[in-house]
Protein backbone atom coordinates (compact mmCIF):
# COMPACT_ATOMS: atom_id res chain seq x y z
CA UNK A 1 0.00 0.00 0.00
CA UNK A 2 2.73 2.46 0.96
CA UNK A 3 4.25 2.66 -2.50
CA UNK A 4 1.09 4.07 -4.09
CA UNK A 5 1.83 7.60 -3.04
CA UNK A 6 0.02 9.22 -5.95
CA UNK A 7 -3.17 7.29 -5.21
CA UNK A 8 -3.05 8.08 -1.51
CA UNK A 9 -2.38 11.78 -1.94
CA UNK A 10 -4.82 12.02 -4.83
CA UNK A 11 -7.59 10.36 -2.86
CA UNK A 12 -6.99 12.56 0.16
CA UNK A 13 -7.17 15.59 -2.07
CA UNK A 14 -10.35 14.43 -3.84
CA UNK A 15 -12.46 13.14 -0.98
CA UNK A 16 -13.33 16.52 0.62
CA UNK A 17 -14.38 17.86 -2.77
CA UNK A 18 -16.53 14.80 -3.46
CA UNK A 19 -18.26 15.28 -0.12
CA UNK A 20 -18.77 18.98 -0.82
CA UNK A 21 -20.12 18.25 -4.28
CA UNK A 22 -22.59 15.79 -2.74
CA UNK A 23 -23.84 18.53 -0.44
CA UNK A 24 -24.07 20.92 -3.41
CA UNK A 25 -26.23 18.41 -5.30
CA UNK A 26 -28.35 17.92 -2.19
CA UNK A 27 -29.01 21.59 -1.49
CA UNK A 28 -29.74 22.48 -5.11
CA UNK A 29 -32.17 19.60 -5.40
CA UNK A 30 -35.26 21.55 -4.43
CA UNK A 31 -35.99 23.53 -7.58
CA UNK A 32 -33.02 22.51 -9.75
CA UNK A 33 -31.59 19.22 -10.99
CA UNK A 34 -30.14 17.16 -8.19
CA UNK A 35 -31.51 15.70 -5.04
CA UNK A 36 -31.02 13.20 -2.28
CA UNK A 37 -30.52 10.08 -4.34
CA UNK A 38 -27.67 11.43 -6.43
CA UNK A 39 -26.21 13.20 -3.42
CA UNK A 40 -26.35 10.04 -1.34
CA UNK A 41 -24.58 8.02 -4.02
CA UNK A 42 -21.86 10.68 -4.41
CA UNK A 43 -21.46 10.89 -0.64
CA UNK A 44 -21.11 7.11 -0.46
CA UNK A 45 -18.66 7.16 -3.38
CA UNK A 46 -16.26 9.22 -1.30
CA UNK A 47 -16.15 6.50 1.35
CA UNK A 48 -15.89 3.77 -1.27
CA UNK A 49 -12.87 5.58 -2.72
CA UNK A 50 -11.37 5.83 0.75
CA UNK A 51 -11.90 2.12 1.29
CA UNK A 52 -10.37 1.25 -2.07
CA UNK A 53 -7.22 3.24 -1.44
CA UNK A 54 -6.72 2.84 2.31
CA UNK A 55 -8.27 -0.59 2.78
CA UNK A 56 -11.51 -1.78 4.28
CA UNK A 57 -10.41 -1.81 7.96
CA UNK A 58 -9.45 1.86 7.81
CA UNK A 59 -12.73 2.74 6.10
CA UNK A 60 -14.66 0.85 8.74
CA UNK A 61 -12.85 2.86 11.40
CA UNK A 62 -13.71 6.13 9.67
CA UNK A 63 -17.33 5.15 9.06
CA UNK A 64 -18.31 2.28 11.38
CA UNK A 65 -20.78 -0.27 9.91
CA UNK A 66 -23.04 0.36 12.88
CA UNK A 67 -23.40 4.04 11.96
CA UNK A 68 -24.07 3.12 8.35
CA UNK A 69 -26.73 0.64 9.43
CA UNK A 70 -28.44 3.29 11.56
CA UNK A 71 -28.26 5.79 8.68
CA UNK A 72 -30.00 3.45 6.27
CA UNK A 73 -32.95 3.04 8.64
CA UNK A 74 -32.96 6.62 9.91
CA UNK A 75 -33.47 8.12 6.44
CA UNK A 76 -36.82 6.41 6.00
CA UNK A 77 -37.86 7.71 9.41
CA UNK A 78 -36.91 11.28 8.37
CA UNK A 79 -38.80 10.92 5.09
CA UNK A 80 -41.99 9.55 6.59
CA UNK A 81 -41.55 11.88 9.58
CA UNK A 82 -41.83 14.94 7.31
CA UNK A 83 -45.08 13.51 6.03
CA UNK A 84 -46.35 12.96 9.54
CA UNK A 85 -45.46 16.56 10.49
CA UNK A 86 -47.56 17.84 7.58
CA UNK A 87 -50.38 15.58 8.76
CA UNK A 88 -50.12 17.00 12.28
CA UNK A 89 -50.23 20.51 10.85
CA UNK A 90 -53.59 19.68 9.34
CA UNK A 91 -52.67 19.18 5.68
CA UNK A 92 -52.48 16.01 3.59
CA UNK A 93 -49.52 13.64 3.77
CA UNK A 94 -46.39 15.28 2.29
CA UNK A 95 -48.24 18.53 1.56
CA UNK A 96 -45.18 20.73 2.14
CA UNK A 97 -47.12 23.97 1.85
CA UNK A 98 -47.86 24.12 5.56
CA UNK A 99 -44.27 23.71 6.72
CA UNK A 100 -43.50 27.45 6.65
CA UNK A 101 -45.31 30.77 6.83
CA UNK A 102 -46.14 30.65 3.11
CA UNK A 103 -46.51 27.67 0.71
CA UNK A 104 -43.48 28.58 -1.42
CA UNK A 105 -41.05 28.45 1.48
CA UNK A 106 -42.89 25.41 2.75
CA UNK A 107 -42.21 23.57 -0.52
CA UNK A 108 -38.50 24.47 -0.24
CA UNK A 109 -38.19 23.16 3.30
CA UNK A 110 -40.31 20.11 2.62
CA UNK A 111 -38.28 19.02 -0.40
CA UNK A 112 -34.97 19.66 1.37
CA UNK A 113 -35.96 17.64 4.43
CA UNK A 114 -37.38 14.78 2.39
CA UNK A 115 -34.24 14.76 0.24
CA UNK A 116 -32.16 14.72 3.42
CA UNK A 117 -33.97 11.55 4.39
CA UNK A 118 -33.33 10.09 0.94
CA UNK A 119 -29.64 11.08 1.17
CA UNK A 120 -29.26 9.40 4.55
CA UNK A 121 -30.83 6.15 3.44
CA UNK A 122 -29.13 5.99 0.05
CA UNK A 123 -25.75 6.74 1.63
CA UNK A 124 -26.34 4.11 4.30
CA UNK A 125 -27.52 1.46 1.87
CA UNK A 126 -24.77 2.09 -0.67
CA UNK A 127 -22.00 1.85 1.92
CA UNK A 128 -23.68 -1.19 3.51
CA UNK A 129 -23.79 -2.91 0.13
CA UNK A 130 -20.12 -2.07 -0.44
CA UNK A 131 -19.05 -3.29 3.01
CA UNK A 132 -21.10 -6.46 2.63
CA UNK A 133 -19.67 -7.34 -0.78
CA UNK A 134 -16.11 -6.24 0.03
CA UNK A 135 -16.08 -7.98 3.39
CA UNK A 136 -17.23 -11.39 2.18
CA UNK A 137 -14.20 -12.96 0.55
CA UNK A 138 -11.82 -11.54 3.13
CA UNK A 139 -13.39 -13.21 6.14
CA UNK A 140 -13.72 -16.58 4.50
CA UNK A 141 -10.18 -16.42 3.14
Amino acid at each position, binding site marked *: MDDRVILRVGAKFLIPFILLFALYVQFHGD*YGPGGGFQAGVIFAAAFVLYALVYGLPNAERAMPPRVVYICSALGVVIYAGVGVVTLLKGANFLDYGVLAHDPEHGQHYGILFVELGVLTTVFGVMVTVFYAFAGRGRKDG
Partner: protein
Amino acid sequence: MRLLGLYNYWVVIVLMMVGFYTIIARDNLVKKLIGLSIFQTSVFMLYISMGRIHGGTAPILMEGTDVVYSNPLPHVLILTAIVVGVATTAVGLSLVIRINEAYGTVEEDEIHSQDESL
Protein backbone atom coordinates in the same frame (compact mmCIF):
# COMPACT_ATOMS: atom_id res chain seq x y z
CA MET B 1 -37.39 5.40 -43.99
CA ARG B 2 -40.27 5.69 -41.61
CA LEU B 3 -39.09 2.65 -39.76
CA LEU B 4 -35.60 4.09 -39.37
CA GLY B 5 -37.03 7.32 -38.05
CA LEU B 6 -38.28 5.44 -35.04
CA TYR B 7 -34.76 4.30 -34.23
CA ASN B 8 -35.25 4.79 -30.49
CA TYR B 9 -37.80 1.97 -30.52
CA TRP B 10 -35.38 -0.25 -32.43
CA VAL B 11 -32.75 0.38 -29.77
CA VAL B 12 -35.31 -0.51 -27.11
CA ILE B 13 -36.40 -3.70 -28.88
CA VAL B 14 -32.84 -4.91 -29.54
CA LEU B 15 -31.76 -4.26 -25.94
CA MET B 16 -34.89 -5.91 -24.62
CA MET B 17 -34.38 -9.06 -26.66
CA VAL B 18 -30.66 -9.24 -25.83
CA GLY B 19 -31.49 -9.00 -22.15
CA PHE B 20 -34.38 -11.43 -22.31
CA TYR B 21 -32.38 -13.97 -24.30
CA THR B 22 -29.56 -13.76 -21.76
CA ILE B 23 -31.97 -14.40 -18.89
CA ILE B 24 -33.41 -17.47 -20.57
CA ALA B 25 -30.39 -18.98 -22.30
CA ARG B 26 -27.53 -18.50 -19.85
CA ASP B 27 -26.81 -20.94 -17.05
CA ASN B 28 -24.51 -18.65 -15.11
CA LEU B 29 -26.45 -16.87 -12.38
CA VAL B 30 -24.39 -13.66 -12.65
CA LYS B 31 -24.91 -13.52 -16.42
CA LYS B 32 -28.64 -13.95 -15.87
CA LEU B 33 -28.58 -10.88 -13.62
CA ILE B 34 -26.65 -8.93 -16.24
CA GLY B 35 -29.35 -9.92 -18.73
CA LEU B 36 -32.01 -8.75 -16.29
CA SER B 37 -30.25 -5.39 -15.98
CA ILE B 38 -30.06 -4.96 -19.75
CA PHE B 39 -33.72 -5.91 -20.02
CA GLN B 40 -34.68 -3.29 -17.43
CA THR B 41 -32.44 -0.70 -19.06
CA SER B 42 -34.32 -1.11 -22.34
CA VAL B 43 -37.48 -0.05 -20.53
CA PHE B 44 -35.68 2.98 -19.12
CA MET B 45 -34.79 3.95 -22.70
CA LEU B 46 -38.41 3.52 -23.75
CA TYR B 47 -39.60 5.92 -21.07
CA ILE B 48 -36.81 8.46 -21.45
CA SER B 49 -37.14 8.71 -25.22
CA MET B 50 -40.89 9.17 -25.03
CA GLY B 51 -40.51 12.17 -22.73
CA ARG B 52 -38.46 13.98 -25.36
CA ILE B 53 -40.15 16.72 -27.33
CA HIS B 54 -38.70 18.03 -30.64
CA GLY B 55 -36.87 21.28 -29.92
CA GLY B 56 -37.58 20.89 -26.23
CA THR B 57 -35.02 21.82 -23.63
CA ALA B 58 -34.34 20.37 -20.20
CA PRO B 59 -37.35 21.04 -17.95
CA ILE B 60 -35.72 23.70 -15.77
CA LEU B 61 -37.77 26.86 -15.48
CA MET B 62 -36.39 29.68 -17.67
CA GLU B 63 -37.26 33.31 -18.38
CA GLY B 64 -39.79 33.89 -21.15
CA THR B 65 -42.97 32.13 -22.19
CA ASP B 66 -42.02 30.68 -25.58
CA VAL B 67 -39.69 28.01 -24.19
CA VAL B 68 -40.53 24.39 -25.08
CA TYR B 69 -39.72 21.91 -22.33
CA SER B 70 -39.36 18.16 -22.56
CA ASN B 71 -41.79 16.16 -20.46
CA PRO B 72 -40.09 15.58 -17.08
CA LEU B 73 -42.59 13.06 -15.75
CA PRO B 74 -41.26 9.95 -17.57
CA HIS B 75 -37.76 10.90 -16.44
CA VAL B 76 -38.89 11.10 -12.83
CA LEU B 77 -40.67 7.77 -13.14
CA ILE B 78 -37.54 6.20 -14.54
CA LEU B 79 -35.46 7.64 -11.73
CA THR B 80 -37.67 5.55 -9.45
CA ALA B 81 -37.40 2.53 -11.72
CA ILE B 82 -33.59 2.86 -11.80
CA VAL B 83 -33.54 2.80 -8.01
CA VAL B 84 -35.72 -0.29 -8.08
CA GLY B 85 -33.40 -1.85 -10.65
CA VAL B 86 -30.35 -1.14 -8.48
CA ALA B 87 -32.11 -2.70 -5.49
CA THR B 88 -33.09 -5.77 -7.51
CA THR B 89 -29.54 -6.24 -8.77
CA ALA B 90 -28.11 -5.82 -5.28
CA VAL B 91 -30.51 -8.38 -3.79
CA GLY B 92 -29.85 -10.72 -6.71
CA LEU B 93 -26.07 -10.45 -6.42
CA SER B 94 -26.13 -11.00 -2.68
CA LEU B 95 -28.23 -14.12 -3.28
CA VAL B 96 -25.66 -15.28 -5.84
CA ILE B 97 -22.84 -14.76 -3.32
CA ARG B 98 -24.67 -16.86 -0.76
CA ILE B 99 -25.51 -19.50 -3.36
CA ASN B 100 -21.82 -19.61 -4.23
CA GLU B 101 -20.96 -20.09 -0.57
CA ALA B 102 -23.54 -22.85 -0.17
CA TYR B 103 -22.90 -24.76 -3.40
CA GLY B 104 -19.43 -23.67 -4.48
CA THR B 105 -20.66 -22.78 -7.96
CA VAL B 106 -22.83 -20.25 -9.78
CA GLU B 107 -23.70 -22.50 -12.72
CA GLU B 108 -27.35 -23.48 -12.74
CA ASP B 109 -26.88 -27.03 -14.07
CA GLU B 110 -24.23 -27.85 -11.46
CA ILE B 111 -26.50 -26.55 -8.69
CA HIS B 112 -29.32 -28.74 -9.98
CA SER B 113 -27.15 -31.85 -10.08
CA GLN B 114 -26.00 -31.20 -6.50
CA ASP B 115 -29.56 -30.88 -5.24
CA GLU B 116 -30.73 -34.00 -7.03
CA SER B 117 -28.03 -36.09 -5.41
CA LEU B 118 -29.28 -35.10 -1.95
